């Protein structure tokens, strides 16, 4: 009766698509938004205008987008991490609002108290994260638990890195979620590195999804560069969750194609590793597939991409025109009521 399943070792792959042409277009558009958001932020960093760390998701777009796309954004809930901007877009986050939040300008949903992807937008069912890795996993589980007590199934989707997966709270949260059959999906984004630390110094198991067995939950390891595979795997996880079968642990294999944040030259990453993974770029491979399957033409994609980048840059520029939040904001809201 246990939904436990050992992962196959070799990442699975599907050749035919579950998705309609429109859905595939949509997926690509989110992937491009994620990608060009990064391009625009990188540009800002180089201009010395970024504030705080700039954490690229280059190489991870398929995970953020494919997973969030499997959820019902009117019912389910998203707890994204630092490399999941793609999922914010899928959940309908307004671009200008996102930029203002990210850059902590006046009008930010965090009033300048925090920035980057840390914000919550309850109206869009997005809750943010804190810097402490792993801390939000029990919180995501608890969010779903509340609805479970009300007899409602609300799937929580959240993420952790190959590095963050070693935090004790991850263990407690997964075990707790499995005991209570909480509809939680945890994606372990194994992008080979945690800051400068390679997988070999982080854990000694073959697959991080092997941990699912120890919690009596479903676990699998998949190729994280294939957006439709991520989507299909998460969709199954959502369905299991809706059937009351509890949480799923999905390890996605990708490569962090840039430094931990932009200040990091990532010289500790072997060049051939980057070259190898460059051929598996999730955006480029998906474009190839989309074009091959006749969903869009190469020119259409190119145009979409250019528009997307221009939109990102324009939105950033609008955010930058805004002032920093007023100093008084710093003294407000420590408590809801006092």
């Amino acid at each position, binding site marked *: 009766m246990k939904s436990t399943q050992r992962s196959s070792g070799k990442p699975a792959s599907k050749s035919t698509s579950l998705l309609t042409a429109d859905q595939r277009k949509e997926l690509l558009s989110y992937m491009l938004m994620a990608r060009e958001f990064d391009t625009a932020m990188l540009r800002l960093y180089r201009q010395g205008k970024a504030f705080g760390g700039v954490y690229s998701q280059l190489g991870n777009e398929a995970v953020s987008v494919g997973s969030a796309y499997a959820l019902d954004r009117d019912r389910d809930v998203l707890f994204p991490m630092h490399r999941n901007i793609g999922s914010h877009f899928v959940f309908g986050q307004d671009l200008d609002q996102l930029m203002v939040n990210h850059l902590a300008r006046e009008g930010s949903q965090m009033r300048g108290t925090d920035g980057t992807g840390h914000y919550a937008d309850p109206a869009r069912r997005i809750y943010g994260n804190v810097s402490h890795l792993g801390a939000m996993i029990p919180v995501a589980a608890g969010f779903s638990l509340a609805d479970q007590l009300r007899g409602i199934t609300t799937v929580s989707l959240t993420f952790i890195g190959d590095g963050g997966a070693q935090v004790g709270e991850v263990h407690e949260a997964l075990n707790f979620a499995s005991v209570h059959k909480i509809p939680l999906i945890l994606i372990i984004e194994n992008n080979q590195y945690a800051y400068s630390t390679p997988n070999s110094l982080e854990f000694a198991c073959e697959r991080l999804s092997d941990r699912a067995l120890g919690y009596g939950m479903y676990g699998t390891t998949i190729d994280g560069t294939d957006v439709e595979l991520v989507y299909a795997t998460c969709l199954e996880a959502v369905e299991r969750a809706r059937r009351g079968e509890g949480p799923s642990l999905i390890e996605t294999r990708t490569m962090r194609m840039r430094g931990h944040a932009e200040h990091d030259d990532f010289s500790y990453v072997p060049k051939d590793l980057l070259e190898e993974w460059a051929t598996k770029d999730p955006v480029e491979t998906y474009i190839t597939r989309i074009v091959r399957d006749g969903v869009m033409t190469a020119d259409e994609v190119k145009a979409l991409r250019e528009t997307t980048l221009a939109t990102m840059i324009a939105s950033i520029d609008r955010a930058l025109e805004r002032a920093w939040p007023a100093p008084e904001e710093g003294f407000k809201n*420590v408590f809801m009521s006092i």
Partner: protein
Amino acid sequence: MQMTYLEAIADAMRHEMRRDDNVFMIGEDIGTYGGAFKVTKGFLDEFGAKRIIDAPISEAAIIGSAIGASLNGMRPIVEMQFMDFITNGFNQVVTVAGTTAYRWGLPVPMVVRGPSGGGVGGNPFHSRNSEAWFAHATGLKVVCPAFPDDAKGLMIASIRDNDPVMFFEHKGLYRKIKGEVPEGEHIVPLGQARVVRKGTHCSVIAYGSAVHMALAAAEALASEGIDIEVVDIRTLVPFDQETVFESVRKTGRALVAHEAVLTAGFGGEIAARIADIAFQYLDAPVRRVAAFDSPTPFAPTLEQAVLPNAEKIQAAVRELCNF
């Protein structure tokens, strides 16, 4: 109605659970067993396993999931089997719960409660008074009741509060202190100190178990002609500076007492505030009586030696009055 301190706490939680479906409890052995101290005895039968959740030994997951549930409209009450084990869920409390209102503008109406304090042979790991950590953490309310009626009234206020509340019950008071407690709805607002004994010569500002030490000291001192005022601050955060100020202005002398260890304890905060705002009314130094700066030892001889008590308060008051 006469109730023990423990019964008053249970009464408050039962009252709120009956009143509001969003209130639920989570902790270790709180269901079938009724909790290590039997505070939740009978709760499982009345409210069922969905609202009285027996959780695995995972303090971080327990607190974290309560935070998540509170973000989704619930009002969880978390029991720490002993408050000492909060160190295992510390990150959830200070990093997540204590910063959410500030960052997101969203309420985390969670109460984390449990037995704290020493004097009962608990050993170094079942006796800690850790309230000062949370007072220093931002965004957390901190409550330390000393009497059954306050325990009930403050618990109801804490459950209804929209901020995370750290609620320190003193295990030594659970069955030792009995008192009249209003039936049904009874609310003691957070942030209000209470003068529990009027006096003129010296103010003793205390909370939790130390209030009872101060009251015992007051009796003894009265026979010597020293008449002390005892202020029970009840909630450390928010802190009722006014009541403390009024008392010290009147008496001109201030002794601060708590059971927690001295250094960097909340007594330092109280003494510092008195030394600032009431300076011109002071006729003597501001002094503190607190536990010696050690873990709470196990053997009764040692434990009694390091913890504060009525005699230590008496001695300190005498010194201040002779200053």
